[in-house]
């Protein structure tokens, strides 16, 4: 294999890409720290505010992981849509089952 190794040309490090990844890492870090700050400063009485902020920040984190780490943000539109549109089913399931939860709660308690 030695003669083959010599033929392979190693390209220089893509600085721009590495910087982008480090920036995304920093964002994910900051958002997680911010989530902790919310968890310990906003009292539990503001339940819905807490849930709303947590869900929003989670979606931001998911966006960065999917778009940059998984590279979906740079893929063809057709691929993006075939992965993201089926997620509407998840939103639908969430919607009906949370209503169902309220109905069960009312029936039992």
């Amino acid at each position: 294999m030695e003669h083959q190794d010599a033929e392979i040309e190693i390209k220089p490090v893509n600085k721009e890409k590495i910087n982008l990844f480090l920036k995304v890492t920093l964002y994910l870090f900051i958002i997680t720290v911010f989530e902790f700050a919310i968890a310990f400063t906003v009292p539990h009485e503001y339940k819905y505010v807490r849930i709303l902020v947590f869900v929003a920040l989670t979606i931001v984190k998911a966006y960065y992981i999917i778009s940059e780490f998984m590279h979906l943000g740079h893929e063809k539109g057709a691929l993006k849509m075939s992965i993201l549109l089926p997620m509407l089913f998840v939103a639908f399931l969430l919607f009906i089952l949370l209503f169902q939860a309220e109905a069960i709660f009312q029936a039992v308690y």
Partner: protein
Amino acid sequence: MSSTTVGIEDKRDLWAGGVSPMKVSYGKLMMWFFLLSDAFTFSSLLITYGLIRFSHPAFEGAIDQFVFSQEYWPIPEVVFEAVPFLHGVHLPLIFVGLMTFVLILSSVTMVLAVEAGERMDRKGVEKWMLWTILGGIAFLSCQAWEWSHFITGTEEGGKLLDGSFFYGANLSMNQYGPPNFAALFFFITGFHGFHVFSGVMLNFIVFFQTVTGKLERTGHYEMIEKVGLYWHFVDLVWVFVFTFFYLV
């Protein structure tokens, strides 16, 4: 104008076969569709958690008054407050926060491995894959500790509805709250943990293929990208588990 006509014709040809319309290889596309199906599985589990949690009463009152009871759903930050070697110290969510960072960092080393692969840099791929595998093993070890702590329980234990005390947790009973709380904990974090375990295995296989030079001989490191997609997905799922199981 002629260029627009050509553009339209090109677009039609794109889906006529013989080329990849989404500009990704077969293997990568199928990995995406597998991850989509896996996303449905995890969404169903987490939404089920929401359904069962909100069909139980929530704890009303100040957080420092909280005691374990089967009457209401526990507040996660009171349940998950232990850190290894710091017995008896109240450190809510610190350990899961650490686990989150470990997994995010191993995701970062994975993109660096993919980047090295694009440059045909075998040494770089080897280095970053090794870090990724170590991150995965570190996460699994943390989870093993978390599980054993959850199963063993605290010294105080929790009062059951019949007035007796129970320590720790199993699938049918637990000291922290309603029986379903522990069942969901085992099922959701266990299913995710098994994904991490499979990911570490896959990472090891591609690491092995890099070391032996198999990937270099094929002329590209796409295998690293495909396994990388799976690994990022495992990280992505943990972000959601962290929010919906530990924070909310």
